């Protein structure tokens, strides 16, 4: 009797295909698309200024392009390492970033009131961009270790991990990044199981801390001015008397976006941004160029692209195979959203002005590379969800 033999056809299993088969193509492509748009807008908003200085009008575009390529490479490297190994090594990640942060405090260069840069030859490097990610990894890793028994004591440790980095960043006068780290850490902790009573206590604590900081003069005048400028938007920016520079900037930014109307002035035609009415137009205020040149349609599409990316990240955090993955992606999501909301919000006058870049859009190598690394971590979590 012939025995039945199993068919030699083998089913394709998850293990054999390898993790790269499970890439979320949208999460991979959206940052690249947004970066491409960013290059266009950087070119548009900086060429005139560069030309009047006798420099190549592609100067910023070239450097941003290099940063994007470096970011993609860094993303690939991050994706190649199983995120669970990163999870287990979270203390190393955390400790690695501390000397960089401390170093910049001692040796760094001052830029826009924030002392957060390393000067390496012609390049500048801003370790606080990487610090955000390190804090997310560390807090997520710690909460994963102590999943289910996050008592007040352990919570204090988790807050301490974030707080220490925040303190150093604050000493670099980089209030914006400090707030971003706070939001990211809070988001991770909320998902990790922060109890409502903890939240109330922490909020009170934070509020009193802010009060003390303002009263004691630890907050710089320009930081207060920015807040005041945000609070007082009665002037429109076209009346220049009795205004401080912050109000002026804000007024010009709003005027630029408002000038865009429904469909915008057209690429390269926006007068406000092109002619340098708006300050920092290729970095922090790049959204004004989008708003003026591409109008409501362009602005809404860009916000929509970020929304789409946020949705995919949110989905990935739910699909994650382990708790660390959920927390990590949540932290990255919080970082993305707070950056987008704060940056675009500030150009439209619904958020105070801080020097936070628009992810993948603003000119700035460190931020671009850090953003791609963060996306790399998310993709890492997603593509290994079956293994």
């Amino acid at each position: 009797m012939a025995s039945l033999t199993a068919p030699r056809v083998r089913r394709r299993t998850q293990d054999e295909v390898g993790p790269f088969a499970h890439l979320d193509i949208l999460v991979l492509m959206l940052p690249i698309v947004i970066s491409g748009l960013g290059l266009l807008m950087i070119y548009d908003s900086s060429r005139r200024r560069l030309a009047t200085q006798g420099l190549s009008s592609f100067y910023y575009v070239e450097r941003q392009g290099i940063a994007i390529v470096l970011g993609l490479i860094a993303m690939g490297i991050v994706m190649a390492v199983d995120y669970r190994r990163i999870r287990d090594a979270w203390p190393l990640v955390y400790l690695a970033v501390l000397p960089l942060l401390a170093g910049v405090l001692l040796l760094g260069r001052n830029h826009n009131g924030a002392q957060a840069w390393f000067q390496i030859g012609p390049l500048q490097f801003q370790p606080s961009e990487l610090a955000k990610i390190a804090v997310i990894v560390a807090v997520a890793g710690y909460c994963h270790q102590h999943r289910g028994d996050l008592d007040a004591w352990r919570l204090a440790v988790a807050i301490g991990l974030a707080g220490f980095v925040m303190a150093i960043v604050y000493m670099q006068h980089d209030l914006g990044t400090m707030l971003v780290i706070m939001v990211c850490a809070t988001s991770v902790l909320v998902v990790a199981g922060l109890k409502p009573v903890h939240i109330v206590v922490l909020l009170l604590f934070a509020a009193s801390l802010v009060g003390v900081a303002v009263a004691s003069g630890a907050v710089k005048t320009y930081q207060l001015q920015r807040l005041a400028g945000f609070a007082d938007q009665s002037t429109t920016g076209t009346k220049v008397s009795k205004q401080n520079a912050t109000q002026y900037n804000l007024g010009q930014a709003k005027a630029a976006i408002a000038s865009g109307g429904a469909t915008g002035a057209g690429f390269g035609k926006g007068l406000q941004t092109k002619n340098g009415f708006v300050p920092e137009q290729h970095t922090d205020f790049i959204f004004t160029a989008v708003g003026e040149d591409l109008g409501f349609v362009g602005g809404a599409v860009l916000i929509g692209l970020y929304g789409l990316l946020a949705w995919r990240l949110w989905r990935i955090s739910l699909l994650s195979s382990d708790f660390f993955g959920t927390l990590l992606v949540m932290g990255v999501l919080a970082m993305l959203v707070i950056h987008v909301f704060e940056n675009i919000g500030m150009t439209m006058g619904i958020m105070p002005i801080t020097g936070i870049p628009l992810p993948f859009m603003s000119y700035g190598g460190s931020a671009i590379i850090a953003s791609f690394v963060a996306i790399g971590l998310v993709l890492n979590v997603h593509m290994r969800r079956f293994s």
Partner: protein
Amino acid sequence: MSDNSRVRVTMIGVVIVALFSALLARLWFLQMGPDQRLAAKTPIRTTRDIQTDSPRGRIFDRTGRIVLAQDKVAWAVTVDRNLARRTRARVIGQLSELLGVSVDKLQASYESKRQSVLKPAVVALDVSQDKRLAILERQEDFPGVGVTQLWVRTYPGAAQLHDPALAAQVLGFVGEIDDKQLKQLKQRGYIAGDEVGKDGVEAAYESVLRGKPTIETVEVDPTGKQVGDPIKVVPGSVGHDVYLTLDARIQKASEDALAAGITAARTQQDTSIKDHLAFDKAPAGAVVVLDTQDGSVVAMASNPAFPPSAWAGGISQQAFNELSAPDAHNPLLNRATEGLYAPGSAFKLVTAVASTRDRVRGPYEPYLDTGSFQIGSDPPLTNDGGVAYGSIDLQRALAVSSDTYFYSVGDILWNRWRAGDPNGLGIQQVAREFGFGSKTGIELSEAAGRIPDPKWKQEFAKAFYKTKSAQQANGVWYPGDNVHLAVGQGDTLVTPLQLADAYAGFANGGTIWTPHIGMRIVDPMTKKTVRTIGRKARGHVVIDPTVRAAMSAGFDGAVHANGGTAETAFQGLAVPVSGKTGTAQVYGKVATSVFASYFPSTAPRYVVVAMVEEAGHGADIAAPIVRQVIEAMNGISPVTAIHPRTGQHD
């Protein structure tokens, strides 16, 4: 994932949706809704005029192949003048680190009084792109530091011929307009802080060379930064090019020859000092090469010189101090046009014409030269070295440079003047016909010189002496005055250019040209010549043909005849040169070495004159300098080296 976590993730999702909705809503409001009123209308802003300089015209040499001066764009780093002292110190420190220039140097540039106080101080020129970017990218690190384009005067010809001071005094330099010039030029659109030609051709042709600046009226934001396109533009234009009659290569050869002559003179023993060994000082000199056919200046050298490029971007105080120091012997002075010297025997050109025209002595009439000449009971005047030349006529008197021959002419004419004969002032008359005693009319600044006569002496005494008796005693026109004038001494003063122009007049048959150094003006945009500077006669000297022949033979003899004063200096030179040496005594100093010449002897085309202060005999220093220039003009290379003190008596 626990349900608790799921709920929390969902909660966060809701928050995110709310945030994105808020952004979209706000965007709608701003661009589609009521807040569209914020859209930029024609804003009310303060305006400011911004002047962008247009490049100055170029200066070419005669050939048009060598650019003597041209404007070049240079990127300059500037420091605002309103910075607080402390901030400035910090900024200069940072700039020093970035640019690799010492703090002291930057500080010195900042403080230089040669820079405009109305504009930000230029502290560094020719700054590379990466350094400019470092400043622009981190403006906050460099408060008050600007990067601007400047037009800087450069001297390509100087670089090409390896001579930073090439034609320095002829070209002049460009600097900030001063109060006096501003007053004169205000209605021509100059404003304080403008650059203007200060000397030489740059000043003479300022009106054509100047680039008309573009003036843009722009709007500025509260921080003073320009925003938007200019409201009004008054377009400027590029300055016109000036082609000079100067030949850069002959100019270079003249400067080299002059420098070689001066160097040689400084190894000559100063024979007036008996108690110790001293050398001639030879502090300065000049060479002029003129075209006899139109009075155009082919070369004009003045030593010591200076590099005009030192003025680019505002000369440093230190460099200016060095140029103005007494032991620098005033390198800014163009000795060819502003240097006043007794011409010595080179002046016998004039006396020879006067002597024959006023029939003191015919051209072939002999005169017995005993080696000395006595006026009344004064100690006798002698020939140089006390040599007696015996029976000589005009030709020989010029060739060997007999002083007594011409002393006697001066004395005879003085006696006629004393007797009331108008011919008594014949030397002065002919000198003025040759153009001495008045400005030549060249475009450059120049001195008039002086031809002494009884009237001048009286006025001089009146101005110089206080008591009536002293004025009277010193105001008398003595025979000695006329006798010294006859040999180009005493109170006679000429510029090297005047001497050259006079010899050019003799060489071309009597026409005295107004020398000129500009040849034509060209609009660089259309490449069309807008003006040609032609020859212009300012006088004519009538010389009888037989006299002319005798004098020509005399000048030829000075170079070629046995015993000619410059015979040794020109030995072996194939070019037929004629000339006259001069050794002009200067009270308390070593004599001025003079040589005036023209060539080719039979159909003279060029005049070459050299004068060197405190350098001794004309034959020793000036003649060899002229030989080198003529050799260079005739393609003889290498030129004959100058050996100190080889010449004959003068």
